[in-house]
């Protein structure tokens, strides 16, 4: 275990803007009348609805079930009636609609049956050991637990062991490195015991050697709360291999590869997953949800969202999934000059296009935008090849080369400069003196690369099917010819036989054979 975190390459120091929203406790958002639950709330395949219009549901009831491994179920955040299943505006940079389940709340907020995985939170270690990892994985999938840090990757998938590298390190990511966002900070401060219990649960399940909880050093209260909770857990059973580490607040310290390097000194080369290095990472809020699910039988139905920016009352709220974002931001009272709403952080977020779009599992922050907080972008000029971008790129890329090829719409060349390793952190665009929206070019070029890959796959499959079809046609032709020949031969034989018995004339027997043969 490293004594002190290492400094990763690149990165930038940003104004934190955390104190505005971090000073007050997490409040409960009022229950809206209608909840809109988009089916896709995680990476992988969207779950399939298992309710119909008019069905009554209780809080925590499963309303859509995962049908594939990389997919997670979805649950009703409150009791009420299913009103519609169909396309609805969602928070997506495209502004397109996506299929969703609409629930009209009845106001009772009545829980359905809760079935925790561990019968009581104090279930003994021996019992816990009897749980098979597969059982836990299935359970978490059914509880809809996904990464709440932003990538929304289903958590159960990350609990599978890599075939040949044993897991050594479990990292709990509480870095929360993007400015303005404080939802994980407040959660770690106020619910540290659950975060620690969840951490220990995952530690036992994955059988790792060391567990590191990473918190940026601009959140000393969260780090202290976690240490205190750890000490309380330690009093119950001895814990030697779990430590809270404070990272220097350099953006993007919470990005996975940077975090792994800072805490373990391991560098993941391009296209290598962290599990191949024996490291697995979970976000702190995800770990909290894991514990709520396994110990209390509560699926993921709510999440903490930071409301901040140009508002009267910045803070954090525990919000039922499906609450319209416009309605939620209104609770923090945006000031008059607010002109837009940023979903996510200021570095990696996007602008909300429809205020009816609902909060989903991945929505961590809403920022009321105004020119005072975010001065308007200056016009883009030409790249002067100053290489400032390359100096701050945490992935060690050369953004100016990526830009050159992306701008020329030559995504193949950009891919050769490791475009796909770009994490879209925005450091390069932040420092660029030419005000080039570099990340926007990279996102475009990445889309092109993915489309080309898809076309290539499609072509390969079409070719395979076409060739198989030709093969089959040939085989069928050959078979038909053979059958005909056989039938002809048979007939010839019969005729010959008849000829021999009847007239004894061999001349008659030969004619049909030659005529019928193809």
């Amino acid at each position, binding site marked *: 275990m490293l004594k002190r975190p290492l400094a990763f390459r690149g990165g930038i120091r940003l104004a934190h803007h955390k104190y505005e929203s971090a000073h007050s406790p997490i409040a409960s958002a009022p229950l809206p009348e209608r909840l809109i639950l988009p089916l896709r709330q995680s990476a992988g395949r969207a779950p399939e609805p298992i309710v119909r219009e008019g069905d009554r549901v209780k809080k925590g009831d499963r309303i859509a079930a995962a049908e594939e491994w990389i997919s997670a179920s979805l649950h009703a955040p409150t009791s009420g009636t299913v009103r519609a299943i169909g396309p609805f505006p969602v928070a997506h940079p495209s502004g397109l609609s996506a299929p969703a389940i609409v629930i009209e709340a009845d106001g009772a907020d009545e829980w359905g049956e809760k079935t925790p995985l561990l019968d009581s939170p104090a279930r003994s270690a021996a019992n816990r050991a009897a749980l098979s990892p597969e059982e836990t994985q299935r359970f978490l999938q059914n509880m809809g637990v996904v990464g709440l840090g932003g990538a929304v990757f289903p958590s159960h998938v990350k609990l599978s062991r890599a075939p040949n590298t044993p897991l050594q390190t479990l990292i709990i990511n509480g870095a929360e490195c993007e400015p303005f966002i404080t939802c994980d900070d407040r959660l770690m401060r106020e619910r540290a015991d659950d975060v620690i219990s969840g951490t220990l649960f995952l530690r036992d399940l994955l059988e790792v050697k060391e567990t590191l909880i990473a918190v940026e050093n601009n959140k000393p209260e969260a780090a202290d709360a976690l240490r205190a909770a750890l000490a309380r857990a330690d009093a119950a059973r001895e814990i030697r291999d779990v430590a809270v580490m404070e990272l220097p607040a350099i953006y993007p310290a919470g990005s996975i590869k940077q975090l792994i390097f800072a805490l373990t000194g391991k560098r993941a080369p391009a296209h290598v997953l962290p599990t191949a290095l024996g490291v697995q990472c979970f976000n702190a809020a995800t770990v909290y949800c894991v514990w709520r699910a396994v110990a209390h039988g509560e699926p993921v139905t709510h999440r903490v969202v930071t409301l901040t920016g140009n508002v009267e009352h910045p803070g954090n709220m525990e919000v039922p999934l499906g609450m319209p974002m416009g309605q939620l931001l209104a609770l923090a009272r945006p000031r008059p000059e607010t002109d837009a709403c940023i979903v996510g952080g200021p570095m990696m977020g996007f602008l909300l296009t429809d205020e009816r779009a609902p909060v989903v599992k991945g929505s961590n922050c809403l920022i009321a935008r105004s020119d005072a907080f975010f001065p308007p972008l200056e016009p883009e000029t030409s790249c002067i090849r100053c290489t400032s971008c390359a100096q701050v790129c945490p992935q060690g890329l050369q953004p100016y080369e990526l830009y050159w090829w992306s701008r020329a719409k030559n995504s193949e060349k950009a891919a050769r400069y490791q475009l796909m390793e770009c994490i879209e952190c925005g450091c390069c665009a932040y420092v660029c003196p030419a005000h080039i929206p570099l990340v926007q070019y990279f996102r475009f070029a990445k889309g092109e690369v993915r489309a080309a890959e898809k076309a290539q796959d499609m072509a390969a499959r*079409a070719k395979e099917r076409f060739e198989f079809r030709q093969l089959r046609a040939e085989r069928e032709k050959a078979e038909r010819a053979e059958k005909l020949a056989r039938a002809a031969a048979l007939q010839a034989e019969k005729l010959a036989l008849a000829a021999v018995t009847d007239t004894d004339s061999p001349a008659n027997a030969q004619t049909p054979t030659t005529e019928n043969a193809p």
Partner: protein
Amino acid sequence: MDVLTAIAILTLGAALLGAALGFAAVHFRVEGNPLTEKIAALLPQTQCGQCGYPGCKPYAEAIAQGGADINLCAPGGEDGVRKIAELLGLEIKPLAEGAAQKPPAVARIVEDRCIGCTLCIQACPVDAIVGAAKQMHTVISSLCTGCELCLPPCPENCIEMLPVQETTENWAWRYPARVPALPPLALSPAASGENSC
């Protein structure tokens, strides 16, 4: 004497090399024309025949033998032409007249009009249509390449081409505008509930 030795050595060398080359020619022979394969790998494999050849491979063969222009493949589009031009070291040229790239689409059979004649099944080069005689037929849209070869044989004219819809699943970021503009968003004034924090 020296001259004779030199000649002998050279003759021996020539014979050995000749034998080696002959052996290589027989044992390491490449089946098919490697250039044809390389060109075929750049074609979209829809087998649609819009280039005037009976499939992607025949067209690749025709290009490899120098007989065909490189800009005849409509589904491959300008990008496809560029890739072939780069491979062969030729000038990039625009798509041939009449060979316009269409937006991606998949076939759909209007099922209540289908009479189950199986003609479209026989036409589809990638086996993307399922059905049996006198039964309704269906296109498996994930396998359909949009080649439109199934349209003409249908006696009922009941196959239509549906453009692929843009969804949040297949959407991709656009090329950035020079000056990024904010989408208009009117935030309603404090709508519901008192703020408790």
